[in-house]
């Protein structure tokens, strides 16, 4: 390595810290035998890769409604979740870019008593936006806000297994669970469970005072939310941005146009149809992450003909998942295999065999069930997921080749979840996914769960579920979850079509590290984690 090359290397490492000007860098590059353009390119790339302080980012969110509020009992969509949970607040834990659990406001956590007791130790010296110290009392009040008979929190069900929370001194919180749950810290990372100051023993959410990287400056429900940097944020150096504005742009075309004209720097849920064309724009970067979310077609196993496992199996073979992934999601989805556990989740194991479109097999199982032909209704609406109706159209075409006549019934979008889901024998459904296998299975496949959408009650599965939850031996857990995924694949009434990918697009002016898969918008934490690479 020549001296000039060495200097150039050193200079590269200094760019991120803002120690080298662009001009000096280009000179060094020339000295090292590069062209002006090439060294400039390297400067930009390197600069982007290194977090920088300052800047104002405008982030276009795919949601936003006039009924939005900063109340963590709600947070129905990505607007409130990203702006108020991710940017403004912290929970006890967070999920990192690799799907692992990390302490956030907590400094550490540990379990005892067969994962029935969980002790969280709080980080020292953390203050709310108003300067008040965060204490265990605040944590208890914040959690209680989602518990109890009269809570209005949508997250109530997550804490139903918690029998007691108490503060043990100012910096320790102890959770006692009804039954062991090795994944409890994951639950604590849910975006609802933000820590709010306790006022008179009650969580004060209305003031907007939180612990997060940003302080709320202006919020117009359904329009925008503007936040500015919290100078006293407890994470060193973060956030990088001085200001962020979240803008609600629910119309897809408008969102795409706003990014194209540079009126926003980032948009969530980019248009898949025109992604190819968007990619050609050199100023735009597209990020795609396979999330936990998945699209399902639950069959009610208590109702004929779905009470017959062979019929269920026939249906599973009569659907072309790849085509749905390609056409409904335009390739921006990962084909699933009738198990709800996403590849990014711990203990994921793909069951055998891979269910795909195979008319032979479908007919085989149909015959096994004693049928030549079958006629079933599939209830769909785009309220279940965007493209559900089109998916129905595709399923009808493929199923017809297997002797199954699928009558696609369009249901009203309003109150779809009230009137269709869990009511109609076969319908479309969506799960945003859970961070752990246990959590997912408990909510959607456990016999006693009120959202057991296929009404599937497999004794072995339910036995395993309880055992695995309290098991602390990783290898044993892995085996148990592996078996459960196979059972779901083989016997349950849920047809899991695909896992969704979060596709977002942004200006290359924005820089970021690895993107977390647990939620959209970098696990909702983009405001805290991203930076402005060039002004």
């Amino acid at each position, binding site marked *: 390595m020549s001296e000039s090359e060495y200097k150039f290397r050193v200079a590269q490492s200094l760019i991120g810290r803002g120690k080298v000007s662009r001009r000096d860098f280009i000179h060094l590059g020339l000295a090292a035998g590069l062209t002006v353009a090439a060294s400039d390119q390297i400067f930009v790339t390197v600069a982007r890769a290194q977090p920088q302080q300052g800047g104002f980012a405008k982030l276009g969110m795919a949601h936003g409604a006039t*009924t939005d*509020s900063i109340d963590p009992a709600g947070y*129905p969509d990505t607007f409130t979740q990203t702006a108020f949970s991710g940017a403004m607040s912290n929970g006890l834990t967070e999920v990192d870019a690799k799907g692992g659990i990390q302490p956030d406001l907590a400094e550490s956590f540990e379990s005892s008593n067969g994962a029935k007791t969980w002790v969280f130790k709080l980080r020292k010296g953390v203050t709310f936006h108003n300067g008040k110290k965060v204490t265990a009392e605040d944590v208890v009040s914040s959690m209680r806000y989602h518990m109890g008979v009269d809570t209005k929190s949508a997250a109530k069900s997550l804490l139903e297994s918690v029998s007691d929370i108490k503060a043990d001194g100012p910096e320790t919180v102890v959770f006692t669970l009804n039954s062991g749950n090795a994944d409890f810290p994951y639950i604590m990372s849910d975006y609802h469970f933000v820590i709010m100051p306790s006022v008179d023993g009650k969580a004060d959410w209305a003031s907007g005072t939180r612990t997060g990287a940003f302080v709320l400056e*202006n919020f*117009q429900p359904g329009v925008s939310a503007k936040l500015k940097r919290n100078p006293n944020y407890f994470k060193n150096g973060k956030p990088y941005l001085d200001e962020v504005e979240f803008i609600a742009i629910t119309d897809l075309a*408008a969102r795409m146009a*706003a990014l194209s*004209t540079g009126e926003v720097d980032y948009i969530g849920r980019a248009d898949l149809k025109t992604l190819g064309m968007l990619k050609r724009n050199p100023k735009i970067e597209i990020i795609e992450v396979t999330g936990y979310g998945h699209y399902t077609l639950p069959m009610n196993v208590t109702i004929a003909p779905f009470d017959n496992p062979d019929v269920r199996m026939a249906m599973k073979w009569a659907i072309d998942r790849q085509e749905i992934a390609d056409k409904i999601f335009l390739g921006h989805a990962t084909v699933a295999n009738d198990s709800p556990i996403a590849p990014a989740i711990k203990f994921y194991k793909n069951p055998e065999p891979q269910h795909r479109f195979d008319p032979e097999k479908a007919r085989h199982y149909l015959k096994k069930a004693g049928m030549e032909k079958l006629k079933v209704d599939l209830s769909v609406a785009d309220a279940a997921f965007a493209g559900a109706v089109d998916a129905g159209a595709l399923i009808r075409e493929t199923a017809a080749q297997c002797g199954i006549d699928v009558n696609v019934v369009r249901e009203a979008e309003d109150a779809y979840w009230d009137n269709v889901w869990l009511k109609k024998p076969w319908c479309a459904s969506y799960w945003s996914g859970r961070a752990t296998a246990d959590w997912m299975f408990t909510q959607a496949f456990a016999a006693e769960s009120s959202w057991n959408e296929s009404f599937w009650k497999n004794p072995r599965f339910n036995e395993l579920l309880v055992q695995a939850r309290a098991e602390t031996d990783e290898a044993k857990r892995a085996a148990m979850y592996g078996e459960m995924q196979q059972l779901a694949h083989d016997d349950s009434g849920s047809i899991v079509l695909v896992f969704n990918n979060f596709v977002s697009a942004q200006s290359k002016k924005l820089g970021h590290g690895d993107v977390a898969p647990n939620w959209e918008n970098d696990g909702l934490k983009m405001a805290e984690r991203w930076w402005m690479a060039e002004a």
Partner: protein
Amino acid sequence: MRLNPVAKTVLQRLGLGLITLFVVSIIIFSAIAMLPGDFAKATLGQSATPETVAALQHEIGLDRPPVERYFSWIGKMAKGDFGSSFASRTGYRRTVAEIIAPRLYNTMFLAVMTALIAVPLALGLGIVAALYRNSWFDRVVNTVTLTTISFPEFFVAYMLAFLIISRDTFAGTEFAQSLPVWLAISINWTLNVVPKFPTLANINDQTPFWDHVWRAALPSATLTLVIVAHMMRMTRAAILNMLSSPYIDMARLKGMRPMVVVLRHALPNAWAPIVTVVAFNLAYLIVGVVVVEVVFVYPGVGQLMVDAVRSRDVPVVQACALVFAATYVLLNLIADIISIATNPRLLHPR
């Protein structure tokens, strides 16, 4: 007592208007009551437990019977209290008035801005088209305006946005490369002559006035394209209709110039139908712009009402509906007053 005809109409219409508002409130209330789901279910979403839903229903009073809710609402209304949004929580009151006020301002802003462009434009074009009827000008104006109203509104909006985006992207498209160079350059130049209006009209209460105008440019242009045709055609038709009147022959026989014939003799008699159509279109500007609001992300009352309907936020829906109905009633009243004021037969009865 013999009232002035204008005063009489105003009083009569205001009375009827109040009844209309009352009936509208009943209809809207019943409609929301009939909608599947309610606010609690809509906001808590898919994963809420029934107990949670019940608790929320109780807090916002949804567990009371609809008739009782309606009467308590109208009782407050009578006192001028629009009530609170269902999005309010204990200690965090969001009154309907404070939710609607900025939205209404925005809607009015856009409506007035558009009207200031569209109404003079439509009247001017209509008058000139009537004056030079069957000329190429007349035909071109007619066909162009007709075409603009023939496209769905959102399509017009997208097309305008596309023009703005094309400033930067046109040169790189395959289409541009397939054109002769001079043509591609001149198209590109033309595109760049148009100011780069923002495709995102996301204003808020801190937006300065001229920035507001700037951001509302595209929505306003879209609406102008949508409403000009109707008003222009009516102006033209109303004037042409008058042109077959004997007194127009008389004006010509008195040696009046064609412009004087149209402006002084035809137009004053054509106000009534023109004003009615203008009022109709102004009402549309306030009431019917939800699509444009969505496309340009403009925070107006239309989108607010659609949002509120989706989330079953009854007090907000009710207030929006009343604002809209009142607008309709008032604009029609104004149109009637102008019709009377411009018609000596009604203004000065024998």
